């Protein structure tokens, strides 16, 4: 392995270690994980938590935080069900387009006002919750024709239509963040905003793109999940915010911005999805999933913090991810 490969892998060592250990435990205790059923179940988690986590990551890399993603997914599920007479994919595409337009407007408002995105999206979160409520008419909303739902339950090997779409999105955005100028700008604005601006990066474009991506991913996830379930209600998507942000953070995306890649999100989602799939197979209740999610989140954050302390103790010049950086994390999103 080249030196660069080693460095790359080292960046993911905590997450890969946790994932391998968890998979070993699951394989030993759950028969489904000795077959491809386990992989299928874990990948299904990518369709909902994965896509939303992927979207919120775009804003985290930009040094912002979009906490409206779960609400966008909830509203999108309701919109998709209203559109379901168009057929499965037209409904998904139309809903995603609506979500993308919302994300663009939200990003434009945040970029133009230079307002703290955490508080702005807290406001839109509440508004969207109300919109979902109105769309659902105060009760649960169901598709008129359940054929659109059954079409999403097809299984191709370890993939379903929804997890295949989600993974395609991961690849697409991975390439965008890694190799496209507009994607690189999101890192620049998140990692060192003043330097990026001085170097000529637009102050607004990366923010608008990041928020458009986050709403698009959340909209796609909500549309797929809503149509698959065939029904939705106003509160159906509320636990999603914890899961999506946890997945991104567990994967090693930093809230300070400028760091992390799609691989981090992938690992984070895989870890959380593995836990919930394994617990579901054992018939555990939802609260066990939440308890474990919270525990793993705390564990990973503390581990990263300690490894940052150790790293800077060994090498005084290694600042990135060190305790100093972590201490100022709260000031990241301004």
């Amino acid at each position: 392995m080249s030196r660069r490969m080693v460095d790359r892998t080292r960046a993911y060592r905590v997450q890969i270690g946790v994932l391998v250990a968890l998979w070993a435990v699951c394989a030993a205790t759950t028969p489904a994980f000795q077959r491809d059923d386990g992989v299928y179940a874990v990948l299904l988690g990518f369709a909902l938590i994965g896509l939303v986590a992927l979207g919120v990551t775009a804003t985290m890399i930009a040094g912002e935080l979009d906490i409206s993603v779960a609400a966008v997914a909830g509203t999108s599920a309701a919109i998709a069900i209203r559109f379901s007479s168009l057929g499965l994919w037209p409904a998904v595409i139309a809903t995603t387009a609506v979500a993308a337009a919302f994300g663009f407007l939200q990003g434009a408002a945040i970029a133009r006002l230079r307002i703290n995105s955490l508080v702005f999206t807290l406001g839109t979160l509440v508004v969207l919750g109300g919109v979902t409520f109105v769309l659902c008419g105060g009760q649960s909303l169901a598709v008129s024709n359940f054929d659109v739902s059954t079409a999403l339950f097809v299984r191709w090997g370890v993939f379903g239509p929804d997890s295949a779409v989600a993974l395609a999105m991961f690849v697409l955005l991975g390439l965008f963040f890694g190799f496209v100028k507009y994607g690189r700008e999101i890192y620049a604005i998140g990692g060192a905003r003043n330097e990026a601006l001085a170097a000529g990066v637009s102050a607004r474009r990366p923010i608008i793109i990041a928020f458009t991506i986050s709403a698009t991913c959340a909209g796609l996830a909500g549309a797929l999940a809503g149509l698959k379930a065939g029904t939705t209600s106003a509160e159906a998507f509320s636990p999603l915010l914890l899961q999506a942000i946890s997945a991104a953070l567990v994967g090693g995306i930093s809230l300070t911005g400028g760091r992390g890649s799609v691989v981090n999100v992938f690992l984070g989602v895989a870890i959380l999805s593995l836990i919930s799939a394994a617990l579901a197979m054992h018939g555990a209740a939802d609260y066990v999933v939440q308890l474990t999610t919270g525990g793993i989140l705390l564990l990973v954050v503390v581990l990263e913090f300690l490894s940052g302390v150790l790293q800077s103790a060994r090498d005084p010049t290694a600042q990135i991810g060190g305790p100093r950086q972590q201490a100022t994390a709260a000031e990241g999103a301004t």
Partner: protein
Amino acid sequence: MMATRAVPRVGASVGAWKLQPAVAALLGAIAVLMVVGGLTTEDFLTSDNVSAIVRNAAVVGTAAVGMALVTISGNYVSLSVQQTTMLAAIMLAGGLRGDLPAGAVVLAVVVAAVLLGGVQGLFVAMGLNPVVATLAVGSIVYGSVQAIVKGELIAFGGSGVNWITDANVLFIPMPAIIFGVVAAVAAVLSRRTVAGREVTLAGANRETAAMSGISVGRAAVWAFTALGLTVAIAGIVTAIQVGQANASMLDTLTIDVASAVLVGGVAIQGGAGSPAQAAVGALFIALVSNLMVLNGFSAGVREIVSGALVLGAVVAMHVFNERGTR
């Protein structure tokens, strides 16, 4: 406790009492709403309805007072408010159902919530991101409580504590009095004690505060501990008010509390504002939502309006501050 240590006075923003424009605007809006509501909506200015409004504002407002201190200390918001309040309510309900002495139960709830708040403050003081740390602690608390109570609804009979919510003093319901006292005490302590000023100064500028000998970490512990205390009070009041508790109660509390802080005009970047603003914010939201209920607005529309209030408040505050610094 640290009152003997000198703290540099940094001018009017920390030491002096001053009616902030945001608070003045909000109080004005409340007055206008009262008048317009009274003229247009039957049953609005009846004593029953006004007492319902302050009761509704009391639980959210009490917790919002503590949350404001966290925001002022530069630590944004805690995402574990709902879960810790629920824990307090469950503990109280469980203790009272088990016929333990009410005083001891209340004390135990307060101690537990304060410790839990302090622990979150310590995490933040260590350097963990406050939003993430509280998100994690919140889900651990919820999971642990649910693992113990298993979705059970814990109901308890009247056991000598009902006066905490049912009594009226001079026609003012007790929860509103508790809320007012909490807000007033927090407002005074945050201005007049060393710890309170350290919270504000740490939020205003970390580097400067640290160089002036103020521990940013200690300020975080103070703020989160205070939040733990207010959340304990909110949980106790809620549980006694409804006579029962379960793990999924108060599911919108975290957002409601954060909304109250923001509508109250507490700047999200910290370093400015008073806990009393969050109290006024909570009162304003309760007033608007009560008016909408009386006028037959649906739940969805009410939610859209309260979201719009939050958006309007943060945008207005932001634009106002930008102008001020130019």
